[in-house]
């Protein structure tokens, strides 16, 4: 199911876009082609000069001390930094047009974006100093040189094999670079500056992808899985200790963990079994309400108090039962129909909880849920460990990390198993799968139940972590956001769900002002440029890049023949 949502007319639009693109590229090549080196050199020089001169005529609180010259401050550092991948892509040695375009477009976007931002905040173009114009012009020239270049030719790094020590060092270095980037990003407070930073990261990443570095690193991560896993786990465990007792980011990352746990559960349903579930948050809600009702909350309607170990299991099992109840009648449907029915069930859950006053306390929800306590260890209290102060949220962070590790284990085991293979077969061709002896109904139900189980478990943590549950937390939008995390990161993979969750929680946290717009633009760009997500499974990548392999021999229409 799912797979190909190519509406009518897409081909025509593509042909039109391709024609326009060809015309523009042709014109640029005629203009800048013969003097590419000069254009690129001038562009780089202009950018370097522009980034070291003032971008604003007077100081008015725009981040980065833009009115001062002589050093690159604020967003000017990012623009300057982006010159490196732009030139790297332009050199004969690397010769990757896509990388050069990404880098130079980044220079232009950061310079021009901040130029607009300065003009807006400073009350007109009069506030903009010449540096911003120089840098923007430099970016434009770099872009012209990049577009005029020959198509990608040089071999990518991906095929190269280096000594294992070097490879492991590269793994460690790249992970350290990612951590350093996250670290730096967390420290960037101003929204405009963070937007510049995020854009820089995106353009550097796509330039690296163009240079083949990302593909090479992905291969390395797979080859040195143990190193990658250990390093990531260590970094995750060490994180709270680096926060100097500050709770803010620990809280954010704990909620990312909860979100990611649910996203991986959804990934079982959507990514592995290929069942589009638009009401998935309901299972999360079931787990949360079970935990809230069995925790002895201040406003609870039940008088049951269970130890958390029992509550988490109960929440997960009840959610799984709901999964089976909802799945049994609906899993005979396929594709769009299944999506609509699951959407309806998600809404039924929310509305039922909203109206069942005697148990759920309706729209008020259940609040004053106590902190978790294991014996005398209260998870809400700060603790000292290794001489370092850890805020209360750190305990939830570690609890969530353990749950996440377990969920990742479940997911990878399933993915590699006979059951995982049968799920893929169902996604590829349900009729053929059933003819090969795969019990499709039972396996789809199993996917639904496992997904619900994992969401329920995550929900129980969330109830304690957030201290209250209310129907509005489990709306359709939440289901969509979870699905977006899975799709954005890459369907059917653990890193995909993790990356998607991090982006979808962290970016809004940083850019409260224009999150909706950015979110929409990011999704559209993503679907256009990299439909398989940030960290796709190999199979998914094949499915979405089928063109040019003459591979449509197998795309037979559904139906069982005559």
């Amino acid at each position, binding site marked *: 199911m799912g797979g190909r949502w190519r509406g009518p007319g897409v081909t025509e639009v593509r042909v039109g876009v391709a024609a326009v693109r060809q015309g523009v590229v042709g014109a640029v090549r005629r203009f800048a082609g013969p003097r590419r080196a000069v254009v690129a050199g001038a562009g780089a020089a202009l950018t370097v000069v522009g980034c070291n001169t003032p971008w604003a005529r007077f100081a008015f609180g725009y981040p980065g001390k833009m009115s001062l010259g002589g050093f690159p401050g604020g967003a000017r550092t990012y623009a300057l930094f982006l010159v490196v991948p732009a030139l790297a892509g332009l050199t004969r040695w690397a010769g990757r047009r896509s990388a050069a375009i990404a880098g130079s477009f980044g220079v232009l976007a950061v310079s021009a974006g901040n130029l607009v931002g300065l003009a807006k905040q400073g009350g007109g173009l009069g506030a903009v100093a010449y540096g911003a114009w120089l840098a923007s012009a430099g970016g434009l020239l770099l872009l012209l040189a990049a577009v005029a270049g020959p198509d990608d030719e040089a071999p990518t790094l991906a095929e190269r094999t280096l000594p294992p020590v070097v490879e492991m060092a590269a793994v460690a270095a790249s992970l350290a670079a990612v951590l350093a980037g996250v670290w730096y990003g967390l420290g960037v407070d101003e929204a405009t500056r963070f937007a510049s930073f995020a854009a820089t990261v995106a353009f550097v990443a796509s330039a690296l992808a163009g240079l083949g570095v990302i593909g090479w690193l992905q291969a390395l991560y797979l080859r040195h899985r143990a190193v990658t896993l250990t390093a990531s786990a260590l970094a995750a465990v060490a994180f709270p200790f680096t926060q100097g007792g500050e709770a803010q980011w620990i809280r954010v990352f704990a909620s990312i963990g909860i979100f990611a746990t649910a996203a991986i559960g959804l990934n079982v349903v959507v990514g592995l079994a290929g069942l589009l579930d638009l009401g998935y948050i309901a299972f999360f809600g079931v787990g949360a309400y079970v935990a809230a009702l069995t925790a002895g909350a201040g406003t609870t309607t039940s008088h049951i108090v269970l130890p958390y170990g029992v509550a988490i299991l109960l929440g997960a099992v009840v959610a799984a039962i709901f999964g089976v109840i909802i799945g049994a009648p609906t899993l005979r449907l396929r594709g769009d129909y299944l999506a609509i029915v699951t959407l309806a069930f998600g809404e039924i859950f929310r509305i039922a909880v909203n109206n069942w006053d005697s148990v759920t306390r309706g729209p008020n929800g259940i609040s004053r849920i106590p902190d978790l306590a294991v014996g005398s260890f209260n998870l809400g209290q700060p603790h000292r460990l290794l001489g370092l102060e850890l805020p209360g949220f750190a305990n939830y962070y570690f609890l969530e990390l353990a749950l996440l590790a377990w969920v990742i284990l479940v997911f990878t085991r399933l993915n590699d198993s006979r*059951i995982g293979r049968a799920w893929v077969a169902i996604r590829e061709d349900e009729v053929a799968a059933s003819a090969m002896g795969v019990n499709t109904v039972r396996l789809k139900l199993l996917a639904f139940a496992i997904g619900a189980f994992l969401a329920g478990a995550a929900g129980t943590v969330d109830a304690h972590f957030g201290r209250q549950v209310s129907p509005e937390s489990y709306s359709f939008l939440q289901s969509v956001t979870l699905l977006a995390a899975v799709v954005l990161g890459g369907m059917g993979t653990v890193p995909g769900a993790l990356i998607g969750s991090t982006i979808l929680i962290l970016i809004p946290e940083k850019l409260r002002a224009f999150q909706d717009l950015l979110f929409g633009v990011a999704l559209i760009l993503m679907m256009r440029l990299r439909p398989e997500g940030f960290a796709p499974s190999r199979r998914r990548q094949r499915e979405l890049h089928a063109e040019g392999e003459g591979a449509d021999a197998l795309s037979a229409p559904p139906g069982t*023949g*005559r």
Partner: protein
Amino acid sequence: MTAAAVLEARAVSKRFGGLVAVNSVDLAVGEAEIVGLIGPNGAGKTTFFNCLTGMESPTSGEIRYRGRRLSGSPDRITAAGLARTFQNIRLFPNMTVLENVLVGRHCRTREGLLSAIGRGRNFELLELVGLRRAADDLARNLNYGDQRRLEIARALATDPGLLLLDEPTAGMNAAETRSATELVRRIRDQGLAVVVIEHDMRFIFGLCDRVAVLVHGQKLTEGTPAEVQSDPRVIAAYLGSPTPPPS
């Protein structure tokens, strides 16, 4: 007819509204026998296959496999011992050749040790159909003939007692058809019974022990290739007749 029947279909009918696609068809297949099923387009051959494999439930009639009555969903029938290929190839295109075969093993394996033991058999099957070296290729990158062969290997991976082939040589050239004939013979030599639908008469008459002819959903006749070939009613069904056929 052989004494020990692997498959016994009795009076199988399938109606779609007013259309009778299959009308009271009987068919028996003995141990290690190759039976051909021929007939003009639209005669109901594939629908009959679909009834046998549970993809359509017959409106009436009874199907027995080794004396046991077959009913229920396709996966249960496959588990009982019937496997099939499809007229329009239905492989899992984005899985590798080996993975396709492994899905066929699904109903014969349990999680754990057995799946590791089963691997040797998968390579044997790929060897049999000549795809051993393509094990890690994607199914969709195989050429047409190889895709057909992979479908057969995948069906064999379910350890069937009876293999149903729906137009296995469609789109193949003469050389490929000859090697397909050899392949089906080798499968029979391993003790399997085979029912094969095909329009290539040379293939059918050179391969089958017995041939049944379906016309307008009804079985017109059944016999050895020589008998069927010389039956004027069969010729009339395919070519039309200048004079009314003798009945």
